[in-house]
């Protein structure tokens, strides 16, 4: 199981980093989303991997899994969700304003008028 989880985090991170380094805003957003998936799985495994163990008090349990990483992941998911929504709106705004979805700023645009 360790191998599968570690492999999943690795592949997600690699794909995420590759996409973040693209020049267009859509792949960059996908890349950041993949990175946030990777970090969520990674946070889960930071409490040690275990199956069939309850995270909260139970009469029948002999052992427990760590509940804290699960709370951390929940927080991280919510934040990543909100941030992705902001990013999508912002890149849409930038695209509509400049007819161009490049993430870098072309040289001729830098000297343009600003409001």
């Amino acid at each position, binding site marked *: 199981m360790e191998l599968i989880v570690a492999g999943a985090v690795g592949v997600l991170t690699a794909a995420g980093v590759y996409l*973040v380094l693209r020049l267009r*805003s859509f792949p*960059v957003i996908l890349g*950041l989303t993949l*990175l*946030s998936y*990777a*970090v969520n799985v*990674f*946070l889960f*495994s*930071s*409490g*040690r991997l275990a199956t069939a163990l309850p995270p909260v008090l139970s009469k029948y349990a002999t052992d427990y899994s760590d509940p*804290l*990483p699960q709370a*951390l992941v929940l*927080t*991280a998911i919510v*934040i990543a969700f*909100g*941030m992705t929504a*902001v*990013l999508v709106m*912002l*890149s849409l*705004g*930038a695209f509509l*304003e*400049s007819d161009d979805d490049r*993430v*870098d*700023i072309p040289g001729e*645009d*830098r*000297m*343009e*008028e*600003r*409001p």
Partner: protein
Amino acid sequence: MHWIIAPVILPALLAPILAFVMRHDIVLARSFSIAGTVALAAIATGLTITAAGGETLVYELGNWPAPFGIVLVLDRLSAAMVLLTAVLGLVVVLYAAGSGWDRRGHHFHALFQFQLMGIFGAFLTGDTFNLFVFFEVLLIASYGLMIHGGGKARLRAGLQYVIMNLAGSTLFLFALGTIYATTGTLNIADLSLRLQEIPADDAALARVAAALLLVVFAVKAALFPVQFWLSGTYANAPGPVAALFAVMTKVGAYAILRFYTVIFAPGNEVTGTLPGDVLTVMALVTVALGALGVLGTRRLMPLIAFSVLTSVGTLMLAVAGFTPEATVAALYYIVHSTLATALLFLVADLVVAQRGPAQDRLEQAPPIAQNGLLAALFFAGAIAMAGMPPLSGFLGKLLVLDALGDSDGRTVVIWATILIGSLVTIVGFARAGSVVFWKSTALDRPEPEEDAPPAPRAPGTALSGIGAMLVLLVATTALAGPMTAYFEGAAEQLYDPSDYVRAVLARAGEGGE
């Protein structure tokens, strides 16, 4: 001491009211936002006076004892940073209301209060994951403020800013996961204890986490090689927002100071001297890059943004010393550079507003309406920024140079970089000032047409905001003695965290009953 949570709660309650109830009434929103910021400044002053006594005060959220619950911790350093932010916020909100910037888009005051809430929380929290959450709060508000007013250039620069910071946040989470996996805690005080007795097998992993955190905070503080977001963001943000962002890079500097003294104490077994060594190199390159940018740019706003980069580099050189003397110098420089940066951005904003079609391009244009006054204010800001006497920049740089005067072979390189960087900054500002204010007097003002509106003049409220900033700078200079005495106490607390740890973990044993 319930007052410790007030700087977080007050803006958190005020912002939704501003956003939902007062969204259509700018006068109401302004008065509430300004009143709230005045109250925050008063609370921050009270907190600083309390913290000056030297006691570390802890606020347990929900009365859960640390390390299980989240705590807010008030010591000299966090109190000083909260006060600095509150004072800066007050001046910026006055300027934003006076200059009419808050009307050029929606929800300026709500976003502004959320931004303050995030910054205060980041300074006060005693929990690393909570620090991440407050970072996100301040960032998501800053995304909104950055693109306030809209426009092509601003949206594109804002997009870059957001992407850079989202990547940084992801890295932050990776680092926190690694720390939790090796130590089993995320509380700063508890981490400080656990890392002292970490098994040798786990030390390497903890070192990886420390290095990752260094990169994350370097993104926030804008250090080479992750400083590229700063010039575009500051140069394209609305003037008052850029002035408020002056304290954002300081959040990174604060986090580095907190983490690499209290958690990873200098010379400990996990990190050794790694953070100081790496930071010194990063900061040296940052100073050089900022100086090159100041010389190379052809616009006024990017020129100030690049001079911010130089001052961030100088500040981080002092931080990277990781000695009590260097930390005192760094803390004084934080106060100075925040105020000087804000002053310059506010003045430049007025200049750009009056220049009309010439915008902030460094080229000859007809003289602006209040050429003399704004030239004098710009001159004062430039003197402070470049580190010339009589303003606080000179004292700040002197303290930094003095504190780094005996760092072995590095002294020559550090001194040379800071001094040459300052010289280049002076040249850059002198060139910009003479082109914008001086050469323009050679041209005649265009004859106003019969029914043309009069040339725009700076509103009195906006000017009084700038005046307040200048007064603060002068006060920083005049009160350098008491301030450094206070910062010596703050540095003492940082380099001997036993009080901090004891105060936070006072009720740690009660968890079992």
